[in-house]
Every structure is written in structure tokens, then in C-alpha cells.
């Protein structure tokens, strides 16, 4: 073993202890039976996985996919132009603008989400303003809706879309843009034919970095969806904390993990050949 490898030992130990071993425990749980007190009976079964395919749970999966897809699209639509504008401005302004995007991340995630409750609730800031301006006559039900959940996801995960796209955009060789212009492309076709395709690796990692936390979140849906909106994350949390059905919870976790790994593999395969660098 050479010196460099020795330096990796702490990390490898950490990964084995806290990632790989727990993963196998979850895998193990997902294939075992539950006794009436929530304990584990060592006997191999597919029942936990079968249970997931009951309509009530498929519904949760469908809602999770839908909401995370909407918020990912929203993040992309808002985030791409943002990243583009930042990458086009001069260097001094760039770091300031990036800073503004990262700044909210320094506040606690829970606090930020609670803050949205204050903004969206019936006597909240947004309703008060709309009432004051006379745009609405009575308070709107905004909190505890799917919209509120998407709002929370977009708000919390937007930086993860902007940063990788910005990082790729700012690394595009300026001479490529000049070459496109030289060959007769105006700004619009330069964007369509050169900038956008070259930024695709960044878009791919942005999509992953928003979609993954969005599909697995339970805090945002809990606080802003108020129990109305049960997502995969909530389902897992409930199985572990309330229903004490660790076996089923583990099975859902495994299903989710497989979905994420597949989508990750698909996206990286299609972005890596473009030669750009994302955050993955």
C-alpha cells in the first residue's frame, strides 16, 4: 500500500461504516418479515416490495414524481437564464451574484421552510399584501397545497440548478462562440447550436441535484403540504417512525434508490460524452 492510499483510509472506513453497512442493513430489512411488535423475522420474502404496488402507494409514487418533476422544470426554467446571465457578466459581479445565490443556504433549511409557512398562511404576509392591494377579497388557501410544496422545493433547490449550469457555461471557450459567429451564426443560433449543447452536462447535473432531493424530501411536504401531500419521503418516514414497519420502509427506500441510480446513470451517460464538466 503506498502513501496516497493510506490517506484514503479514514474516508473508506467512514464510508463502509456509515454508508455501505447501513445500506446492506436496509437491503436486509426489505427482504425480511415483520413480527407483530415490529421486530425482524429472518425469513426471505418479497412481500414488502409487493405491498408497494398497491394503488394507494403507487399514488404516492406518482405524486412524488409529478411534484419533483414540476419543481425540477421550474428550477430549470428559472435557473438556466439566471446562470446564463451570471456567466455573461463581468468577473467581479459574477462572484457577488453567485454569493447571493448561495447566501440563503447559510440559513438553516428548516428555518427557511418555516419562513415560507409564515409567508403563505391565511393571515400571512402574501395574503395580507394581496388583500391590501385589493387583488383578492378574501385570503387564499395557499399553504398546505401542492403549489406550496413545489414552491418550497424550487426555493430550496434552485441554487443546485444554477451552480452546475453556471460552472459549465463559464468554462465554455469564448473562441467557440467567436467561431460560430465567424461562420455566420447570430447570437440566437450561436446559443441554440453551440452554447446550449455544450452546457448540457451542467443541465444534467442540475436536474439530478434538484430532482433527487425533491423526490426524497419529507420536510418540505410535511411543513408546506401539511399532511395533505404525502410524498415518498413522508411515506418512508411514516413507516419507520409511526407504523414501525421498518421492513416496508426499507423496501420503499430501496425502490427509490434504484430509481435514482437509474436516472443518474442515464443522465451521466448522455452528458459525459459532451466533454464538459458538471459537478458529478
Amino acid at each position, binding site marked *: 500500500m503506498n502513501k496516497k492510499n493510506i490517506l484514503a483510509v479514514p474516508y473508506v472506513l467512514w464510508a463502509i461504516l456509515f454508508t455501505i453497512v447501513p445500506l446492506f442493513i436496509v437491503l436486509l430489512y426489505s427482504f425480511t418479515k415483520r413480527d407483530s411488535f415490529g421486530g425482524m423475522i429472518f425469513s426471505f420474502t418479497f412481500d414488502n416490495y409487493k405491498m408497494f404496488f398497491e394503488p394507494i402507494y403507487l399514488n404516492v409514487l406518482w405524486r412524488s414524481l409529478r411534484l419533483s418533476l414540476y419543481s425540477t422544470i421550474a428550477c430549470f426554467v428559472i435557473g438556466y437564464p439566471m446562470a446564463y446571465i451570471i456567466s455573461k457578466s463581468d468577473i467581479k459581479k459574477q462572484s457577488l451574484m453567485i454569493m447571493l445565490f448561495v447566501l440563503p443556504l447559510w440559513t438553516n433549511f428548516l428555518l427557511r421552510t418555516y419562513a415560507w409557512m409564515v409567508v403563505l398562511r391565511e393571515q400571512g404576509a402574501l395574503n395580507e399584501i394581496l388583500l391590501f392591494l385589493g387583488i383578492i377579497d378574501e385570503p387564499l388557501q395557499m399553504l398546505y397545497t401542492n403549489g406550496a410544496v413545489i414552491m418550497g422545493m424550487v426555493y430550496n433547490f434552485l441554487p443546485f440548478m444554477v451552480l452546475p449550469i453556471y460552472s459549465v457555461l463559464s468554462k465554455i471557450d469564448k473562441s467557440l462562440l*467567436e467561431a460560430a459567429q*465567424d*461562420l455566420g451564426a447570430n447570437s440566437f443560433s450561436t446559443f441554440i447550436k*453551440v452554447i446550449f*449543447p*455544450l452546457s448540457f452536462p451542467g443541465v444534467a447535473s442540475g436536474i439530478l441535484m434538484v430532482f433527487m432531493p425533491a423526490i426524497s424530501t419529507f420536510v418540505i411536504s410535511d411543513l408546506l403540504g401539511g399532511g395533505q401531500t404525502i410524498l415518498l419521503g413522508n411515506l418512508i418516514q411514516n413507516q419507520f417512525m409511526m407504523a414501525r414497519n421498518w421492513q416496508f420502509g426499507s423496501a420503499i427506500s430501496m425502490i427509490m434508490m434504484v430509481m435514482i441510480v437509474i436516472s443518474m446513470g442515464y443522465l451521466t451517460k448522455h452528458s459525459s460524452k459532451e466533454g464538459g464538466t458538471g459537478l458529478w
Partner: protein
Amino acid sequence: MTPSIIELKNVSKIFNEKEALKSINLDIKEKEFVTLLGPSGCGKTTTLRIIGGFETASSGEVFFDGINISSIPPYKRQINTVFQKYALFPHLNIYENIAFGLKIKKVDKDTIDKKVKKMLSLVNLEGFEKRDINSLSGGQQQRIAIARALVNEPKVLLLDEPLGALDLKLRQDMQYELKTMQQELGITFVYVTHDQEEALTMSDRIVVMSDGKIQQIGTPEDIYNEPINRFVADFIGEINMVTATMIQDYKVMFNNKVFECVDKGFNSNEEVDVVIRPEDINIVPKEKGKITGWVTDVVFKGVHYEIIVVDKQNNKEWIIHTIHHTQAGIEVGLDFESEAIHVMRMGEVIGE
């Protein structure tokens, strides 16, 4: 007279309050191979970028075929560029790279197909259509960059140090190929380089630049044989330079001796720079030499020997290029013809 295709009139460029170009006037004729030559930071690339439209002149005007194009964006100019680091699109294959300009112009598919094939055969890369850019060597990427520019049939092709990254042998081959291509296609080439040999090999005319100014414009022979000032002489090839006094027409004095020369029109007793090329000096027995000195170094350079002779009178080193070997340490004479003496006004620049 052949008409001008590109004209720069009093073009200046200021970057961050620094003058990169100082009132450049340049006239490029149709089908001409013009090289902008100079050390880095002399303004040659800026001049090229102004012609291409990637920079806007701070003042002055650019004409293309007699039309003022100063404010026309690059994508509307009938000019194409071969970029320094090729700037090939990494997300497109070779075919798509070459077809890029034609697709933008909405040329129909069959024509694109035909033209791309023709270009690939012009640059000797038939059958490379589907290949990835990154699978090519530097020389091949260079050819693709040239093909991508030429397929648009520009009237003027700009080349920004296109051979800079290639090794010597390949560079020399490409020099010939570029020159042949230029003559066959009848396109105006504006070529930027800091390599004087490259400039001498390929150009119809060379524009020597330094410090944001044009020092001299002329054919390779003119520039080499009749450099207008110390800078041009020094930049183009190796030289022996002495300060001298012009006694009268056809008489110049240096090394405390008066020599016959072929220059006239100077004030009497004007201080001048005198240049003698190393290959114009012959080594002769010391009694027959116009100057005598000691041989201090003899270096074999392949085609010739480079011999350093220190002259006895004022310790000046003379560089001589000759195919005849001489022993180091002996005393010799240096002989040169009166035509070999180039007399230059001090600090003279074209147009001043």
C-alpha cells in the same frame, strides 16, 4: 492594378486606456497573401480581430470591397477565420463541424454533402466524416479548422497563428500546403505570425508590426534585404548592426573607416544605423579584410557554420554565416561587398 479587398484607414484600438493600435493604415489586395508579423503584443492579432469583426476599432474605418464594414457584426461579414487553437466544436463530429456554416446559411443537404466531401479531400482527410474532434492530432484538427472556414467560400480568410502548436516538420509541410491552397482557390489570406521564417516563406507581402504601429510593408525580399529600421532588421533574421556616420552620398563611416555603399539622400554627417547580414560577410586572410578580428566561436548549425569574430578595434562581435569551416582562435579578415551594407535612418517608420 488589382483592386483592394480590405482597407484599414487610421484604425486605432484602445484597451483599458492603453493604445494597442496606433492609427494603422493597411491596404490588402484581392488574392494576396499578406502576413502580419511581429512580436507578441505588437497589435497583429488585434488588427486581425478588427478585420474579422471580433473587436471594434476605437477610431478609424474598415473597408471590405470598398464598403465600410466597421460596425457590421462578424456573422454578416464575408470573411472566415482559422482560430489560433482551432476552436472546433467539441459536441459535433467532423462532418458537422465543417457543415456548420452552410447549415446556418440554410444550404440544401445535397450541396452541403458535396461541399463537405470536397473540403475533406482538399485537406487530405477523406473518410473522417464521423470521427470525433478529440480523436484527431493537432495537425488534423488544424486541417479541419481550415476546411470549416474555406467551405463557406469566403473572399478573405484570416489565420491567427494557425501553425503555432504544430511541430517543426509538420509546420513546414503545412506552410507549403497553405500557400498552394491559397493560390489554387484564389482567396485573400491574412495571416498572423511571430515566426519570421514562416512569413518569409508564404507571403506575397509582409507587414512588420511593433508597438501598435506598422514598421514596414513589403515583399519578403524587400523586408529582408532592405529593412527600413533597426527593429525590422533585427526581427527578420540575424544581423550585424553598427552605428555609423554618413559622410556623403555612397560613403559611410564605421569602425573608423570609410566604406563604399549604395545608399544616398542622407544629410552629410548624419548618424545612421548600418546592417550587414551574417551571410553577406566572407572570411578572408587578414591582410585582405576590410575589418580584422579574432575568431572566438565556431558553431555548426547544419546548413552553415556560425562564426563569431571579435574585431580588434572596438571589441564588437560580428556574426558570420558561412559554409566554410574556420579555426577558432586565429586572426582573420572580414570582407563584404558595398551592396551588403544597408544604411537606415534612425527610428524611421513607414508613413512617418
